[in-house]
C-alpha cells in the first residue's frame, strides 16, 4: 500500500506491510498433472483438509435441499442458463445498453491480454495508484494482479482466503474456498511474519489482524476491482455475492469500480435470481443465501450519499464465444459454485492446483482444454474417473461427464494423444474385443499377480503396477471355493 498513515477507525496493525509477492505462475505448460498431484498428495494436511472440507460442503448442500423440490429447482436453473446462452448476443446487447444507461462504461476484451491492457489503462488514465480487489476467478484467468503491479499499481486481495493466497505467492485451491489446502498454522506463521511478532494462533485473532490491515486498504484505495456472478440484462446490473462484505466495500468505497466479467454470466431478468441465487449459494457453501448479495447498477447517482464516481465493466470473451452453438456450449452454463469439485473423487485426492490453471475439479477439466487448447490443457480432461458424480450435483445440470468424453475424443482427433498411449489403447482394444484373448490375458494376469501376492494382497513394487502399489495395496479378489 502506498498510503501508510493511520486512518480513523482503522489503525494499521503493528508491523503491517502489504504482501509483496507475485502471484504464483500458471504451471500448465511446464509440469504434468501427475507431478502437480503428487505435490499436494505429499502434504498429509492438505489431503485431510481437502477431503474433510469437501465432505462438509457436500453434506451442507444435501441438507439445504433435503426437504424442498431440488430437482425442479435444478430444471429451472438449467433452463434459465440454457435460454440465456442460446440468446447470448441479444441479452448481451440488452445488458450493454442498460448498463450504459446507468452510467457504466463498458469495454470489450477479446482475450486475456486485452483485459489486462484495458484495466491497466483505466488505472493509468484515472490516476489509480492502489486497488482493493474482491475475489474474482476471471481475474485469475487473465493473471490481472501482476499486470497491474507492472504499471505500478498496488493490489490488495481483500477476501481473507485470497489475501493469504496473495501473501504466500500461492494460487487459490478452490473456487469458493481458496485456502482450503492451507492450515491455520501456516496462516499464523505468515501473519506473524508480516506483523513482526508472534500473533495468537487462533482463527479469530488471525482474522482480526487481516481485517485491520484490509480495512485501511478499503478506506485509502483509489480503485476497487471485482468480478461478477451475474450480469442482469433487463437492468444492466452486475451481481456479486460475498460473505465477508468485501465485494460490497470494494465496489462501493473507492472512487472507481472496475468489474471484469465473462460474457456468459448474462441472465435475462432480476427475477431469475429467485432460482439461480439459492442454487448458487446452496451448492457453493450450503448456505440458503450468502451474507451479502450486491446488485450494482453503475456509479453513484446524484441523490445518493456514497458510491464510486465511475463504474467500468470489462466484458471478457477469451474463448467463450467460440463455444456458442457447438458441442461444448453447455460449459458456458456454469455458475461457478464449485459443487462438482466437492464431489469429484479425483479433486478430493489431488486438490485444485493439480489442474495447473485456474479451475479445478470436473469443470476445470472441461474449461482448461476449452480455454487453453488441447495441446496445453488436454491432459486434465483425462484426470477424471467418469463416475458422473459431477452431473448428479451440478445445480444447472451441465452434463460434465459427456463434455469430458467429448474432450477426450477431440484430443485424439487433434493428434494430442501421446504415441505410447495410442498404441497401448490400440493393443488393449484389439485384445479385449476378442473373448478368447480376454479370458487368456485375465487368467495370465490373475495367475502372475497371485504369485506376487501375500494373503491375496499385492503390496510390493510390481513392475508396471508401481503407480498403484506405491500408494496403496492391490487387493486381489479371492476365488470362491
Amino acid at each position, binding site marked *: 500500500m502506498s498510503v501508510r498513515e493511520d486512518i*480513523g*477507525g482503522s489503525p494499521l496493525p503493528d508491523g503491517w506491510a502489504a504482501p509483496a509477492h507475485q502471484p504464483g505462475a500458471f504451471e500448465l505448460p511446464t509440469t504434468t498433472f501427475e507431478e502437480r498431484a503428487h505435490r499436494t498428495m505429499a502434504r498429509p494436511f492438505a489431503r485431510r483438509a481437502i477431503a*474433510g472440507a469437501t465432505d462438509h460442503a457436500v453434506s451442507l448442500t444435501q441438507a*439445504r*435441499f433435503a*426437504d424442498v*423440490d431440488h430437482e425442479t*429447482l435444478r430444471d*429451472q436453473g438449467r433452463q*434459465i442458463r*440454457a435460454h440465456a*446462452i*442460446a440468446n447470448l*448476443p441479444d441479452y*448481451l446487447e440488452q445488458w450493454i445498453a442498460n448498463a450504459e444507461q446507468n452510467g457504466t462504461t463498458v469495454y*470489450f476484451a477479446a482475450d486475456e491480454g*486485452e483485459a489486462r491492457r484495458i484495466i491497466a489503462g483505466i488505472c493509468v488514465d484515472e490516476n489509480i495508484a492502489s486497488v482493493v480487489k474482491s475475489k474474482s476467478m476471471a481475474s485469475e484467468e487473465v493473471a490481472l494482479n501482476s499486470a497491474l503491479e507492472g504499471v505500478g499499481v498496488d493490489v490488495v486481495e*481483500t477476501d*481473507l*482466503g485470497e489475501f493469504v493466497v496473495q501473501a504466500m505467492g500461492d494460487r487459490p485451491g478452490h473456487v469458493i474456498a481458496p*485456502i482450503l489446502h492451507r*492450515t*491455520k498454522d501456516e*496462516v499464523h506463521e505468515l501473519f506473524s511474519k508480516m506483523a513482526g511478532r508472534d500473533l495468537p494462533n487462533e*482463527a*479469530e485473532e488471525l482474522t482480526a489482524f487481516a*481485517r485491520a490491515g*484490509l*480495512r485501511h486498504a478499503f*478506506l485509502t484505495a483509489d480503485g476497487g476491482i471485482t468480478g461478477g456472478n451475474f450480469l442482469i440484462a433487463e437492468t444492466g446490473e452486475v451481481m456479486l455475492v460475498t*460473505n465477508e*462484505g*468485501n465485494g*460490497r*466495500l470494494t465496489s*462501493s*468505497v473507492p472512487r472507481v469500480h472496475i468489474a471484469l466479467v465473462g*460474457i456468459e454470466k448474462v441472465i435475462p431478468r*432480476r*427475477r*431469475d*435470481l*429467485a*432460482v439461480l441465487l439459492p442454487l448458487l449459494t446452496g451448492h457453493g457453501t450450503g448456505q*440458503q*443465501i*450468502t451474507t*451479502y*448479495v450486491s446488485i*450494482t447498477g453503475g456509479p453513484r*447517482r446524484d441523490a*445518493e*450519499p*456514497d*458510491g464510486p464516481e465511475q*463504474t467500468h465493466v470489462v*466484458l471478457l*470473451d477469451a474463448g467463450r464465444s467460440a463455444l*456458442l452453438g*457447438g458441442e461444448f456450449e453447455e460449459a458456458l452454463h456454469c455458475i461457478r459454485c464449485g459443487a462438482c469439485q466437492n464431489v469429484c473423487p479425483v479433486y478430493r485426492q489431488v486438490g485444485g492446483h493439480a489442474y495447473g490453471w485456474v479451475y479445478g475439479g470436473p469443470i476445470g477439466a472441461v474449461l482448461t482444454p476449452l480455454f487453453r487448447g488441447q495441446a496445453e490443457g488436454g491432459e486434465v480432461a483425462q484426470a477424471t474417473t467418469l463416475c458422473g458424480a459431477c452431473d448428479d450435483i451440478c445445480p444447472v445440470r451441465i452434463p460434465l461427464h459427456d463434455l469430458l468424453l467429448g474432450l477426450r475424443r477431440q484430443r485424439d482427433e487433434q493428434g494430442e494423444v501421446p504415441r505410447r498411449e495410442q498404441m497401448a489403447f490400440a493393443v488393449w482394444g484389439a485384445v479385449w474385443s476378442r473373448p478368447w484373448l480376454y479370458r487368456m490375458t485375465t487368467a495370465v494376469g490373475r495367475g502372475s499377480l497371485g504369485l506376487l501376492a501375500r494373503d491375496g494382497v499385492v503390496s510390493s513394487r510390481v513392475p508396471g503396477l508401481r503407480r498403484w502399489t506405491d500408494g496403496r495395496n492391490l487387493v486381489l479378489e479371492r476365488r470362491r471355493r
Partner: protein
Amino acid sequence: MTDRATFLAAVRSTPRGDDPGQPDRLHAPDAPTELRDGEDRFDRLLHECALNSTVVHRVPEDSVAATILAILDEADAQSVALTEDLGARRQALTDACAAAGRDAAAYADVAPNRARAGALDATITGCAAAVAATGSIITSAAGAGRAGALIAPTHICVVDRDQVVTGLHELFDGSVLADVGSLLALQSGPSRSADIEKVLILGVHGPGNVHLVLVDG
C-alpha cells in the same frame, strides 16, 4: 483494442444452440428461499434471523428509540450515522441519540469523508424490504447508501411490519422494489468467513453485530 462491433460480431457469428425458452413459471414454492405453504412470514423471519445471527427486537412504534439506544449502549457505540431510508423516524432518532450523548449524524454528511465513515461505531438504517424466508434486510443506494449497512461494526435496521415479503420470488418479481438507484443490497446477518480451517468468524469486513428492529403495532 477490440471495438464493440467486432466483439459482438464474434458472439453473433456462431450458430445458436437449442433454446428451451424461459421457464413458464419461475416461482418455486419450496425453494429454500421461499415460505412453505401456510407458513407465517413473521415466524419464519424470526427463525431465519436466529439462524444467521441477526438479533431481532419486535417492538411497538413508541419503543423504537429506546430499543435502539439500548443496543447502542450494549455495543458501546459512540459515533452513529442515520440513513435517509429511516424516513420520518430519522429526525426523532437523531435527536434521541444526541440526547443520550451519542455523536449522531446523517449518513449523507459522514459518507463523503471515508476516514470518518470508517470510524463510525454504528449505522442505523431503514430498509426497502425484509425477506422472511432468508432473514434478509434489503437496502438501496438511494436509501441506505452503498456502504451504509456494512461500514460500521454495528448495523441496526428498522423494519416496518408491512415491509416484510415472503421470499426471493416476491422480492424480485413484484412491485416491492421501486427505483433502487445504483445498488440493490441484500444482507443476511453479520459479515462472516470460514476461510481458516472452516472456523466460522463473524464480523470480518462488515458488521459483526446486526440488529433488526421490527416495528409491530
